[in-house]
């Protein structure tokens, strides 16, 4: 990596121009600290589409992009099962790396990545975007400010129609299923909110006969401090279902509650449908990526280093295990 001088913009390469890659590319293009210099996608037409949209370079392999661009930041937005190899390659080329969640599909892979990140001396972050979402960070601020007193019980929903944007989500071996891919958001947020670790988890999950992944999960978490939480994540909502999230935390002095169904400021009615919108310019994705860029520029530790992400994943893996065995699972899991 080249030294970055004052006023210089961090050369950024996004890898994977699918659902999240498109979101990240658009946000990078708005961040003053960075410049989206290239997008990598194994599908040439997609890479080309990105290049045209953002006037940047297009590549079909990360190696080539690393070689030619010598980027400051690589942002891995590919399917989960490809993360490890790409993250290791980028770290090996001495770039700072931000990787979409979930980091990887086994604790062993996570540990390898963490070790490589540490040895490289580069900045490494896992993109747990919820910590940067304005609504969820407001919850965090309120709870830290004592609005609920000492927390006691929380519940979170994250409900979606079947992911129609890519097929690998509905393959448990590639995405980890709905707990590892979707419930992970609220599990991570709860760990962060409570500043505590989960000590026991119990989960129930549905795997439709014609689908290769769990698509609806109910997860019960008990934290070391004794707080309890219910997390529901679903890809089983009917087609056309508006993505819905809910979060509440009650404590000794009060309650804080957030409901996407009642905080949508814009409703558009068109022939044949309704669209509900909640536009925020500086949304969670932009704040997240900007945070990472600033950590690189100011030599600070990112909000979600690998060590944090693996703790969240451990809870998710335990929840999957519980859903399969029907028994509660105690944490931490035994070292592999």
């Amino acid at each position, binding site marked *: 990596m080249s030294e970055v001088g004052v006023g210089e913009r961090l050369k950024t390469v996004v890898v994977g121009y699918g659902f999240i890659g498109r979101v990240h590319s658009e946000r990078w293009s708005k961040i003053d600290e960075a410049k989206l210099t290239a997008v990598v996608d194994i599908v040439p037409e997609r890479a080309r589409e990105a290049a045209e949209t953002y006037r940047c370079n297009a590549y079909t392999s990360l190696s080539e992009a690393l070689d030619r661009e010598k980027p400051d930041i690589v942002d891995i937005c590919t399917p989960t099962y490809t993360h490890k190899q790409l993250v290791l390659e980028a770290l090996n080329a001495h770039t700072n790396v931000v990787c979409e969640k979930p980091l990887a599909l086994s604790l062993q892979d996570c540990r390898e990545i963490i070790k490589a990140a540490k040895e490289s001396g580069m900045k490494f972050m896992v993109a747990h975007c919820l910590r940067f979402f304005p609504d969820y960070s407001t919850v965090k601020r309120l709870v830290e400010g004592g609005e609920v007193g000492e927390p006691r*019980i929380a519940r979170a929903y994250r409900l979606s129609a079947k992911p129609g944007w890519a097929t690998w989500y509905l393959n448990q071996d590639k995405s980890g299923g709905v707990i590892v891919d979707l419930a992970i958001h609220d599990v991570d947020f709860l760990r962060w909110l409570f500043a505590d670790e989960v000590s026991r988890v119990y989960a129930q999950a549905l795997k439709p006969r014609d689908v290769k992944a769990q698509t*609806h999960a*109910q997860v019960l978490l008990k934290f070391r401090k004794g707080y309890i939480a219910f997390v529901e994540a679903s890809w089983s*909502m009917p087609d056309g279902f508006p993505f819905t999230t809910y979060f509440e935390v*009650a404590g000794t002095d009060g309650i804080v509650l957030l409901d996407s169904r009642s905080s949508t400021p814009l409703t558009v009615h068109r022939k044949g449908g309704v669209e509900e919108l909640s536009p925020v310019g500086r949304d969670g994705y932009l704040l997240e990526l900007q945070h990472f860029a600033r950590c690189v520029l100011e030599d600070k530790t990112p909000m979600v280093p690998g060590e944090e992400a693996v703790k969240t994943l451990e809870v998710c893996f335990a929840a999957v295990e519980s859903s399969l065995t029907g028994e*509660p699972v105690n944490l931490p899991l035994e070292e592999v």
Partner: protein
Amino acid sequence: MRRLRAGLISFAHMHAYSYARVLKELPNVEFVAIADDDKARGEEACRRYGVKRFYEDFREMFKREELDFVVITSENAKHHDQAVEAAENGVHILCEKPIATSLRDADDMIRRARKAGVKFQTCFVMRYSDVVLRVKELLDSGELGRLMAITATNHGKCPGGWFVDKELAGGGTIMDHTVHVADLMRWFTGSEASKVYAEMGINIRKQLTVEDNALIMLSFRNGVQASIDPSWSRPDSFPIWGDVYMELLGSDGRLMLDGFRQVVYSSNVKGGPTWVHHYWGCDVDYEMVSHFVKCITEDLEPRATGFDGRQALEIALAAYKSIEEGKPVELPLL
């Protein structure tokens, strides 16, 4: 038209006031007597509802009055003796939930009522909500396909008083708030719970000796997976009393039920910066009590029987057992 002679035992449960109001409203009911072991409370209620005779001892009421039916709204642990006495006297029984604090008591109440040939209805008022009835219709029509998962909450504020006395209530928030939605789950699925797992939190209110927050997971025999949050997790300042909320996931659709969302909002300069919610939806207490009266006059089976009360109680008791043992509990318990 002969009017049915009604008695009511105890205003310990706040629902008694609403049921008493309905007893006065129904044209074919004569509200003749109140029994309450709290004399001042009972006499005050007699004045309020224009009921002529008051008894401190419910046994005395059954002896002296020719009652057709009795409403039991005492502390949970007292239901058993009162229901048994009603059955012995051939009086139909409308009993507040939870039906009792033990399965042994519940089974005894049901057996004695059956033996005496009297109706026994458990006050699962939600089965009389028009919103819930529409859900039941939608599910039964098959429009949502096969039911697969349910998530439910029955949140509330802490009611205090005897509700937080284990001897009288049989427990805390799990005993108070599990049974309504557990009953709806049984009704909707047409199945029984086969497995229950629960976790208890640390109390929100330090002074309580019963639990005030918990989370319950259930499996039903027909494969439906479910969860219940029965917690008194709403602070006293909360703008509404709580909720009955359910998400139902079917193979062909999904449904969300928020039982008490039919409200008008108001805000008043004297009330500080807050909304007051004014509920305008159906009067579930009226529908439930009038249905019970109809069951008596037309010899029908109550929509929620003593058995339904017992099965919901079993789920709450299984949650306690799971918490005690730290593992999932298989049902039936007995």
